[in-house]
């Protein structure tokens, strides 16, 4: 269950929440729920920010979300120059928490803060090793 599966460029090979990458590969978006106090977190965390419990379970998210803010990156960092310009959105998740990811299939003129979107689990087809990520796409 390598977490380095997650992302075009990975900076975090190991984590206690590495199963997130396996779930995403199977098409599921998951957050964490504390087994002690029930606090739900996205991004998931192994250790509860509310009660300090180290015990958690996975909870499936619907993928429904609302655009909170965004930007279009023109000056890209190392490892991303080949895909610039790209749009990054931050969305609010109704189950709790926020998520940051690329917006896909949406023109700059169409972007409106507050618009409904969905989180779509994806794999990079053009990269030989397994690499999973997600995109933010239009929701009717």
């Amino acid at each position, binding site marked *: 269950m390598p977490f380095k599966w997650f992302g*075009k460029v*990975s900076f975090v090979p190991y984590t206690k929440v590495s199963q997130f990458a396996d779930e995403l590969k199977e098409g599921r978006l998951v957050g964490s729920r504390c087994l002690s106090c029930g606090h739900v977190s996205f991004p998931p965390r192994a250790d509860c920010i509310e009660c300090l419990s180290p015990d958690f379970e996975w909870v499936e998210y619907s993928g429904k979300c609302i655009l909170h803010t965004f*930007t279009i990156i023109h000056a890209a960092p190392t490892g991303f120059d080949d895909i610039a*310009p790209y749009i*990054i959105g*931050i969305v609010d998740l109704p189950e709790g928490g926020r998520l*940051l990811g*690329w917006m896909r299939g949406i023109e700059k003129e169409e972007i409106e803060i507050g618009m409904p979107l969905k989180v779509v689990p994806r794999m990079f087809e053009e990269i030989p090793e397994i690499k999973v990520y997600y995109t933010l796409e239009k929701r009717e």
Partner: protein
Amino acid sequence: MKVGIVGIGHGKFGRRSDATVQELAFEAFRLAMEDTGNLDRKDIDATIIGSVPEYHKQRSLPGVVAEYLGMNDQPTWLTEAACASSSAAIRSAYMAIRSGMHEVVAVLGVQKMTELETPELLALMGRVGDVQWESIFGTTFPGYYAFYANRHMHEFGTTHEQMLKVAVKNHHYGAMNEKAMFRKEITIEKALAAAPVADPFTVFDCCANADGAACLILASEEKAKKLHDTPIWLEGLGCASAAMSLLRRPDLVSIPSAKAASEQAFKQASVSPKDIAVADVHDCFTIAEILAYEDIGFCKKGKGGKFIDEEQSYIGGSNPINIDGGLKAKGHPVGATGASQTYEIVTQLRGDAGKRQVDGADVGLTHNVGGIGQYTFVHIYKR
């Protein structure tokens, strides 16, 4: 017991391919010693370096700097709080002096950034967000502040033109500051037409990576009165932190650490925002200065755009801000910036700012934000 600043030194900021990091530190230190006048190196009890180590090939900077300044074998150490590293050093110096452990402490903010190529720098700086959930999508430092900018525009109707008015002001004053990296006035039309960086920002919304150093000599009340005829007193200190990740912040139209740090500093110094005659705030991006107006309390939340429209942050306005050109025109050698802001406020409170002088300035403030708001230090000075 009060703590006073008795010496200040500021090197030239910019692309300094002529000097190593310890040579930059030396320039600022020598000027601070000259400014203090009646002080021998052996009477400096400790030297605290404010710097971000990731930019340098040389490891463990305090070692090489203390040696180059001839300051062995006094104690030296590093404070790191991203772009607020030298304000963290000032806070450490204040604590060291107030505790009675040291009487005279040198704070040296120094950074050399331009040895790295731009995409490498963008990658390094982008990793000041959460690397596990954010950097994997190619986030950048300007990108993070662009998230604030777009949300601020959405909630309060702030415009990109209002943001660029901040850049126009800071270049206006920066043109008069011989230490600044950019000494040219700009126009909104030129700024709007410039290369895009991260929507809505063009290059003119962004401060520049730079090399440089600034140095301050702090002393106990008793020592300060002996060393200088106009010590500038550090009378309010605020410091707070906020979530590393924007995904875990309460809102994206303010910097919570800046609000908390400001309240602490105002309380300790027994003053309010209207009393601040001159301030240096952390304008790493144009929206950052607008957030600062609101978070410090110079205006209400959401009214930062109007504040710059009305030119309240110019000399003659309610609170003159970044009269040295700010990070925008001076350049932003991250570890040096907090000390550089303090250099300007001390200069203003002494009445030595020349044609940029705010007449009768008696209370000044620095607001230094680390990273994308993870740390903020607010300091209030009186003459």
